[in-house]
């Protein structure tokens, strides 16, 4: 297991370096000039050149990339602005702050959003899927199928906007969504994120319901389940100990991918609810041609996907003994 994990971590690091390199070089293909944004309303060529120099954009792209990469391990010194200790992801001239600080500030918002919503959609999605599978063809199954179809067709910007309008602005059931650190005010943290969690969960629950239902139906028809029943095991034990375990493998797979993507930035959700997480940060970075911040958000998104893949692979071994044996 240790060897497996070591191999996967090294592979992940290589993938992240490749992604960073590609992002870095692609940025310079775009014709937009970030120095223009650091140059005033009257921007003669000399001032523009000075702005370019101040941003380090007058260096060759390769040199810039190597400096950036080196900063992650050894830190960097930004002339006049001070040092940026490792892991230094660069200095944002738009935010006037080391990027790592900004990422650390935004990550809790995205993680809180992701975890809260995940708890809801995983619990409801799997539970509804199991119930639908057990009541196959019955009204409950039909309701679950139709609901998941409707849920899957919804978009966050639509459901979120409606939810904000009715539940926040009209009925005042929910407070204005906002992130308050849990350490400051646990109730405020919960209340501020409840609506985004619910809306995000509405969209994601559908997938889990459908996936759980279909896999559970297949598993319930498996020989080992039939054998367990034939041996007199109670229906509850058969479902929870045998059928559900077999159902979990694909659920864990899609959960890993979803979690990775959400940590990488729930751009639309964060924008709809005005939450300042990694998603919004990445959009602002693109808008402002803020390369250091863009690089960091790409790295976080890619890192989240890669790490979640490793976690999923490790979880397979826990869930499925056949993986451990192989």
């Amino acid at each position, binding site marked *: 297991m240790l060897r497996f994990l070591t191999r996967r971590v090294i592979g992940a690091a290589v993938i992240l370096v490749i992604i960073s390199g590609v992002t870095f070089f692609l940025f310079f293909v775009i014709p937009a000039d970030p120095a223009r944004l650091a140059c005033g*309303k009257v921007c003669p060529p000399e001032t523009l050149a000075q702005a370019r120099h101040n941003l380090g954009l007058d260096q060759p792209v390769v040199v810039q990339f190597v400096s950036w990469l080196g900063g992650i391990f050894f830190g960097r010194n930004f002339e006049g602005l001070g040092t940026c200790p490792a892991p230094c992801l660069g200095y944002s001239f738009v935010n*006037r702050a080391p990027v790592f600080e900004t990422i650390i500030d935004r990550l809790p918002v995205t993680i809180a959003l992701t975890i809260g919503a995940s708890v809801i959609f995983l619990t409801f999605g799997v539970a509804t899927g199991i119930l639908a599978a057990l009541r196959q063809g019955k009204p409950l199954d039909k309701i679950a199928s139709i609901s998941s179809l409707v849920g899957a067709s919804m978009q966050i910007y639509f459901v979120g906007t409606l939810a904000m309008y009715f539940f926040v602005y009209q009925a005042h059931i929910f*407070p204005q969504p906002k992130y308050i650190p849990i350490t400051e005010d646990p109730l405020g943290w919960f209340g501020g994120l409840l609506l985004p969690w619910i809306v995000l969960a509405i969209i994601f629950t559908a997938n889990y319901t459908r996936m759980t239902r279909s896999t559970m139906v297949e598993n319930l028809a498996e020989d080992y389940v039939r054998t367990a029943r034939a041996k007199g095991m109670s229906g509850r034990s058969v479902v929870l100990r045998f059928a559900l375990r077999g159902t979990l493998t694909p659920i864990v797979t899609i959960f890993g991918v979803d979690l990775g993507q959400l940590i990488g930035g729930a751009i639309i959700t964060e924008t709809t609810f005005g939450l300042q997480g990694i998603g919004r940060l990445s959009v602002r970075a693109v808008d402002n041609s803020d390369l250091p911040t863009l690089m960091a958000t790409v790295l976080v998104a890619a890192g989240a996907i890669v790490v979640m893949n490793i976690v999923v692979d490790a979880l397979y071994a826990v869930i499925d003994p056949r993986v451990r044996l192989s």
Partner: protein
Amino acid sequence: MNHRKRSALAVAAAASLALVGACAPGNAGAPSSAPASAGASSAPAAEAYKPPTITLGTAEDSKGPAIPPEGVVKGGTVTMIDRDDFAHFDPAQIYVNTDANFGLLISRGLTGYKRIAKGDYKLVGDLATDAGTPSDGGKTWTFTLKDGVKWQDGSPITSADVKWSVERMFAPFVTFGPNYIQTWLTSEDYKKAYPGPYGGKELDNIETPDDKTVVFKFNSPHADANYAFAMAGYNIVPKAKDTKEKYDKEPVSSGPYIIKSHVVDKSLELARNPNWDAATDPIRGAYPDVWKMEFGQEATQVTDRFVADSGPDQTAFTFYSNTPAERLQQVLGDASLADRRMISPSPYGNYYYFNLDRVKDQKIRQAINYAWPAKQIQQALGGPQAVALPTTILNENTTVGYKPYDLFGKTAKPEGDIEKAKQLLAESSNPHPTIVYAYNNLPTQEPVTLVIKNALEKAGIKVVAKSLDRKTYYDSISQTKNEFDLYWGGWGADWPSGSTVMPIIFGPVSDGGQNMSHLNDPTVKAEMKKISENPDINAANEAWMNLDKQIQETITPLVVAENRIGTFLHGSKVGGAEIDPQQWIVSPNTIFVKQ
């Protein structure tokens, strides 16, 4: 615009913000030259918009405290919600209106604008005892600092600080602020003329005979230098606490508040500066005890929150979140919002520039002006409540001595005079010209382009529309060798005079420059120089207005574009909220929290 975004073109940024729409009842916002005109006829009758009055104040006017708005209450916490954080706190790096407006809370300059009443402003001494004394025909300006003006640590603000603040604007790290004073003190290439004070070298033509007096000696007369000093970019930085680049993050306050906390792009909180004395400040009311600022809210969310007006949002307002087009009718149609609505036309000049290197025949340029579908563009952008139709190059909100004129019959025929255009084309060198029209690839610009194309083609002009990416739009059109005949561009006055518009938009022709029509006429140049050096500011203002008309008459380098009208809301427990007509942003000076 936007964008937010921190575009190098401040006007473009503001204009892109405006692109989401805005409105005003009736012809509110229409230029005074076009009473109930230019498409405003279909709008409900309402009080005509009155541009602000801006006059020169006296030493008496320069004394504090500020004139309070009606019903003012001191104390409480006010919340400001907007999309973007402020880009700069270092005055030297401030040019954009959002940063300048925030700067009023934490920094002060030699001069500034005092609100006498709604729409009535005076240029007064801020840190200075009056708005400055010119001598030597406007080449020398002397300012005397008030007694009792202090930094947040209680140390006195001195003339050495003023001198230092201007000198540091020459330093290489300063790339964003204004450059008027620097060029007047040295030369156009001011960064080469003086490297800044950090190496120990001083500028000899800023004199500080004592701690209270500072004398600026310019190379040529500048009758409106005291207006230039009112720009936030010339606010003062303490010599003893200057941290160069780092100052942009850690400013020292001379204003009524200090930054208590700031999470970039997320939140900012201000607390009172105990060393600010209201008796020295004629400009800032500073009524709330605490300011909380919340960033990351899109204009739609901001509008929805103000419409709902629930809980803490009742004590909230926005600096610049203009009501977006999709909420405009709701906001205007809701009578309960009437006393929480603020409406003002943009103070920016918006133009469709002709590339004079390509469209060489003035008759063709005049024909396009006549055929221009102003009314249809207005409709495409939200109607007369969202867009006004000015007819002059200079903007009424930012031109002292504004004098309207209408050369191309826009008041009578806002939909365009196709027959007159055809007649002019017949007299031109090419009765069926082809015009390459470049436009910014924004959702609002597609329908506008279609309207322009349809109208010009009716007159016999073939229009080739070229869509340009929004990120490179300004770079593309500001190239002197561009391949377009017509394109939109904007510019905002830096103080209420043609002197910060005409010499810029018709100034040096260079790549990346602002002379987008490439007008290079010796007569115009000579006239601009003459007006700029006129020691009589009133005569100069009149002359700028005359030159505006003369340029359109004799050269016609542009079509005057539509002007957006902003509609802003605020919470029900916020008082004194007013749009600063020069900055097109809600001023913090009069804001208070109702009890």
